[in-house]
């Protein structure tokens, strides 16, 4: 089951020291609310959830301020063993912005508690009561073939109604009702649906009536039946756990059930997310717009990948139609990033759908802050959809209040992950909601922000990068040629060479070549850089940098500094005393106009708008501390000066 909601796969795995971090929470008088929420936003086991619940209880018992979490007192009326399920509730609620306080009642005391004005749930001043009953408690666990099924259905509804009325009258408390999952066994088979007295038909009927009752009594409705349906009722109903322990449904489903309840409590407290921030390249279209161009990206009917990305766009538009604001944050040149929105016939998303469009080369955290500020909403109202695991980790570390779903490699599952996480849970819907997203679009204005390093050094170190250098070789030849011919943006000279020419350089002793690979803790990024140097025609002790290109995926990771360090030290071994770099402007490489300047080269020729030349004296070059480990394959020293 690679994509099942019971695994909560949109949440990152908990940190290794999760239990230790829980244990220190609440031990001193600081405000722990934000830490609690960020700890809760992981894929937690039952024991981790229980440990979290104890940490929250500790904070509460010492009267600590739990903001930004909102308090919620929830009573539980359960017809089966619920204790173990409750372990999951506090963490699930905190994940959705709620500090949960539970008032529990003994097993199967639903009616007694509801009808007694002096009962725990009716006297506890609760914010809501969850009526956690199932088909068994409503006497719907076997078919009604000898008595009239309508009577069984109406008896079930009367029983439930008595509970709701009791709680509303005595406790003056809003109620959370839930729908009933349909047990998987069939009596006749497919014919069950056509016989009114089968369990399937009766549960169907009761669920319809429960939804009506929720409307009529102003109650919330937790669609447990829908959850069981997507999980699969064969998995949901575990007969061993029911007969042995009276667990209402399989313990494997507790995490997702609790999360679904947490979303609802969050939505009641106004904590549902308001804005979806989209990355662009390989998130809403396939490919890299800066390199592949409008004709090269994959979007639209006709290819599986194009359709997968189309489904992400369709989902985003549907969300917008119900009032979720859309924004863009992408590492791109603004005019290039807007191209497909303007000119690609198959794009569903257009510029007028996007309230804030942030395409630049500044870090994502600063862009997300700018988006929240422009829209005048909290950072905790944002969801970031981004295919790049490193960007996701950076945002989670820098802005833990932003929700960032994990995504699998396969874009066909992106929309599933985004929606399964339940960020945009609603407990009401009106026509104003529909208009809201529209009102935020103020001609897709680009907010101006200051570039700001957010513990950038720490972040880069945390990536545990390994950079590998080697000269051109047979193994790398194909990919080197591909990079040389496809890279448009981070490419200083845009010189193209055929695979045969690349092969020629492998054995040409007058040429210095470098292929660069990068790995980090998220995986192998593969070959991401290429450098070619040739001796200067008038000065054999100088190197002309013929080609310097990099994949835009690794921008902002000090990779260019590491490459320069490598070129400098290899040059020094060969008695080279200066490097000469050139920038040849093209339609797409404006982003590297200042490349050599930023690396400490001195300009020696050319206007800023045309070809420029730059020089670095190796005697003046000093090696920097780099946030990565360097592995260098020995490069033969056969080359002469």
């Amino acid at each position: 089951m690679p994509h099942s909601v019971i695994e909560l796969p949109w949440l990152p795995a908990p940190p290794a020291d999760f239990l230790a971090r829980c244990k220190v929470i609440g031990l001193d008088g600081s405000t722990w609310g934000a830490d609690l929420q960020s700890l809760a936003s992981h894929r937690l086991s039952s024991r981790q959830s229980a440990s979290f619940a104890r940490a929250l209880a500790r904070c509460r018992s010492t009267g600590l301020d739990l903001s930004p979490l909102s308090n919620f007192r929830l009573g539980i009326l359960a017809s089966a063993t619920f204790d173990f399920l409750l372990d999951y509730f506090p963490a699930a609620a905190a994940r959705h912005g709620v500090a949960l306080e539970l008032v529990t009642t003994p097993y199967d005391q639903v009616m007694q508690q509801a009808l007694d004005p002096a009962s725990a749930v009716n006297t506890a001043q609760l914010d809501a009561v969850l009526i956690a009953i199932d088909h068994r408690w409503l006497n719907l666990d076997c078919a009604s073939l000898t008595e009239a099924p309508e009577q069984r259905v109406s008896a079930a509804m009367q029983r439930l109604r008595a509970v709701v009325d009791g709680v509303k009258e005595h406790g003056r408390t809003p109620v959370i009702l839930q729908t009933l999952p349909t047990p998987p066994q069939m009596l006749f088979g497919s014919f069950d649906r056509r016989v009114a007295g089968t369990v399937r038909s009766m549960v169907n009927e009761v669920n319809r009536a429960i939804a009506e009752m929720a409307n009529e009594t102003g109650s919330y409705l937790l669609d447990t039946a829908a959850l069981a349906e997507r999980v699969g009722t064969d998995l949901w109903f575990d007969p061993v756990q029911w007969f042995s322990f009276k667990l209402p449904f399989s313990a494997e489903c507790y995490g997702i059930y609790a999360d679904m309840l947490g979303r609802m409590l969050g939505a009641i407290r106004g904590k549902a997310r308001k804005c979806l921030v989209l990355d662009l390249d390989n998130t809403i279209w396939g490919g890299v717009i800066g390199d592949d161009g409008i004709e090269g990206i994959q979007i639209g009917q006709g290819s599986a990948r194009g359709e997968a990305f189309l489904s992400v766009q369709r989902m985003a538009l549907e969300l917008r139609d119900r009032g979720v604001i859309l924004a863009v944050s992408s590492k791109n040149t603004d005019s290039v990033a807007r191209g497909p929105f303007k000119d690609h016939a198959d794009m569903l998303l257009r510029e007028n759908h996007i309230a804030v469009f942030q395409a630049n080369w500044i870090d994502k955290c600063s862009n997300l802050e700018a988006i929240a500020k422009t829209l005048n909403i909290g950072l905790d109202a944002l969801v970031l959809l981004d295919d790049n695991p490193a960007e996701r980790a950076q945002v989670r570390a820098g802005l833990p209040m932003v929700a960032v779903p994990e995504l699998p490699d396969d874009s066909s599952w992106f929309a599933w992950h985004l929606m399964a996480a339940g960020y945009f849970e609603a407990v009401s819907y009106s026509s104003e909601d529909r208009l809201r997203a529209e009102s935020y679009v103020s001609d897709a204005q680009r907010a101006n922000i200051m570039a700001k390093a957010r513990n950038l050094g720490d972040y880069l170190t945390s990536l545990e990068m390994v950079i590998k250098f080697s000269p051109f070789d047979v193994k790398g030849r194909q990919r080197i040629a591909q990079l040389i011919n496809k890279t448009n943006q981070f490419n200083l000279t845009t010189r193209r060479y055929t695979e045969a020419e690349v092969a020629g350089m492998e054995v040409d002793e007058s040429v210095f070549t470098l292929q660069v690979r990068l790995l980090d803790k998220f995986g192998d990024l593969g070959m991401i850089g290429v450098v070619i140097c040739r001796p200067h025609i008038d000065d054999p002790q100088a190197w002309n940098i013929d080609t310097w290109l990099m994949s835009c995926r690794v921008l902002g990771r000090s990779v260019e500094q590491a490459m320069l360090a490598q070129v400098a030290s290899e040059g020094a071994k060969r008695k080279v005393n200066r490097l000469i770099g050139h920038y040849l402007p093209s339609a797409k490489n404006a982003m590297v106009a200042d490349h050599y300047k930023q690396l400490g080269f001195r300009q020696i020729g050319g206007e800023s708008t045309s070809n420029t030349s730059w020089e670095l004296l190796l005697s003046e070059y000093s090696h920097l501390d780099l946030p990565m480990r360097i592995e260098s394959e020995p490069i033969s020293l056969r080359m002469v000066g």
Partner: protein
Amino acid sequence: MSRTELLNKLSEILGEILEDDNLRLTEATQADQVPDWDSTNHVRFLVAIESEFGIRFETDEIGSLDNVGQLIDLVQKKL
């Protein structure tokens, strides 16, 4: 997994549930000898074992456990 390894793992799992880092089970340990090992925590314990080892207990097996040694027999049989 050896019996000793299993015993250590089970001690760790139950220790987390009972919030007792120093809990050390023996093969002869019975639930009523351990403070807080009540029926609710027993369910937590069995379900946690199921998910830890990726196994499922059957109805008769759940009802027939007298001490930790028997639980180890049962888990070992399923691994």
